[in-house]
């Protein structure tokens, strides 16, 4: 197929937008940005990165938006600012890809639990609502991804006290084999090109398939293949972590 043969460097750059690293970056969230950037560049795609702090406007013309984790107070502030800024909802309306982890995932929903557990309105970009659970889910998580997405098993680390319920407008990203996830046996959620997960921090590092799904969505077509050996280390790490997690079934 000739599409994959295109010289990608003549394309307009892929625009990655990291939302509010000053508020929503506590667990190595930069990793997701670096993984997407690397996997795009290795395929010859030019990349532009914008890090947007909470005192800046969110651009509406990005291709992939990233949101990380955060403590309770920054989560509330980030939500308030994103709602009043309006850039992110507009970008999503225009078809941008949005990938959010942990606190960022909760922000996308209709509501989430604030610092004292009280329900607060989210951005409503994903049909989910979250609240505070009884205890913190901390540890390795393993989950089978919705077969419709064609992504291998998820492996990651979770550290949250959130419980998330999915409405009819969102599908679970995965089914939990080990760990907590949404709290009901499912993990994460997606709808259209908006995808959220409780795998925190650098979730894409051990899940290159998920990174490629986001790139595919952004590109609107199949990705060119990676150079050989480009993901040897990532796959070794992935295998090591998969083997380290006992699955209780």
């Amino acid at each position, binding site marked *: 197929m000739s599409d994959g043969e295109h010289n990608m460097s003549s394309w307009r750059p892929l625009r990655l937008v990291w939302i509010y690293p*000053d*508020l929503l970056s*506590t667990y190595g969230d930069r990793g997701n940005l*670096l*993984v997407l950037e690397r996997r795009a560049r290795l395929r010859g795609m030019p990349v532009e990165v914008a890090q947007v702090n909470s005192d800046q406007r969110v651009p509406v013309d990005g291709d992939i938006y990233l949101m990380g984790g955060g403590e309770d107070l*920054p989560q509330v502030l980030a939500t308030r600012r994103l709602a009043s800024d309006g850039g992110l909802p507009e970008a999503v309306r225009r078809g941008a890809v949005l990938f959010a982890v942990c606190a960022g995932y909760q922000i996308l929903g209709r509501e989430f639990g604030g610092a004292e557990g009280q329900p607060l309105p989210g951005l409503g970009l994903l049909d989910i609502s979250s609240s505070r659970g009884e205890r913190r889910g901390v540890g*390795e998580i393993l989950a089978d991804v919705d077969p419709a997405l064609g992504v291998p098993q998820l492996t990651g680390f979770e550290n949250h006290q959130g419980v998330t319920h999915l409405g009819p407008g969102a599908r679970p990203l995965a089914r939990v084999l080990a760990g907590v996830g949404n709290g009901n046996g499912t993990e994460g959620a997606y709808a259209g090109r908006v995808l959220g997960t409780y795998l925190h921090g650098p979730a894409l590092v051990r899940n290159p398939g998920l990174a490629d799904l986001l790139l595919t969505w952004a590109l609107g077509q199949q990705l060119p293949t990676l150079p050989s050996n480009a993901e040897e280390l990532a796959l070794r790490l992935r295998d090591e972590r998969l083997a380290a997690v006992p699955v209780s079934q």
Partner: protein
Amino acid sequence: MDTSLPARPRLPIRARFATTVGGAAATVSRLAGKGDGSVIGGIIGLRLEPDLLSLLAAGRQVVLVTGTNGKTTTTRLISAALSATGQKIASNVYGANMEAGLTSALSRNPDAPLAVLETDEKYIPAMIKATQPKVLVLLNLSRDQMDRAAEIWMLARRWREALAASPGTLVVANADDPLVTWAASAAGSVTWVAAGQRWREDSWCCPNCGSHLVRDGDDWDCRECGNRRPPVRWTLSDGQVIDPAGRAQPLDLALPGRANASNAVVTLAVAEAFGVDASSALGQMRGVTSVAGRYTQVQRRGTEIRLLLAKNPAGWLEALDVMVPAPVPVLLAVNAQTPDGRDTSWLWDVDYRRLRGRPVLVGGERRMDLAVRLEADDVEFHLVDSIDHAVDVARSPRLEVLANYTAFQQYRAVLGRAE
């Protein structure tokens, strides 16, 4: 001078018994080769007398030292500086920094009128209550082992509450760290120190109101609520300390790096509170060459190895600054056992690009996590299985080693418990 003390009250009989039994257990533990015994001794003592720490602290002048990074080294430096008073000092020199460790340090030195105690960040409220410290040192606060630690803003809030309830305590705090400043500002009296802040990823926002902070050099202020960096009494400036009278003098420490210079300036502010002048304090502090194995130089099969310990992104950033420059090879080692935190995500918060072009070796139980991280920063490296493997691959007269907690301990065990 407030260094002459009334005679310390005698311990009640149950506390004396608890101290004796705890001390015996510690000795057995040491002889059995299970560390220095400070934790087990303290645990047994506290089981026999739950108020043992308060009883042991009563009548002493206590300094508590806390923060995410630099606790152990600063505790060591303060002990050195206060030795200029000529008084005996109790200290938990091996870094056992929870209630049992503090208890054990005091019970091993029952007649020391001074105590310098490294304290885990989470235990500060309880330890303030138990020891009624004369001075509390707040070094810095940043992300660390978040699979179990409290979130740092919550931690700062608890410090505030504890300090508001302890008006007699003087706080010595780093004014360049906005979160530390916010916590310290709840105290009755504070000596502010410009100790610098290398790691800023946890202080872009005002801890008081959440607005984005305006930062200009070391200065910071919040345009929203008016929270700002307070005027400082002591300043670290290019390896020199500027004292309250505005005089500069070189630190000339044996310990390397900006972080230790920062710890030293904080130490001078503590020394001042005990009537020890900067020159006398520095004279003692310069004799500190290694701290519980950190910065130790060891010979191994013809290679001189220096060991650096750092446990979190802020610590790694400082440690990478300290390293002898290229072409000396660097061994980075990471574990993720419980004391390290089970989560390796923090590796992605460190910028490794400065290692490009120098020989880098990667070890530890979680070396694949680090390998993928370095690959993303275009840093070339070799994977190694052990410190000896690293020495073989490095083939260099020198090797710099940076490891997190249990990886450091494993290497130290192989190299002998050199101090």
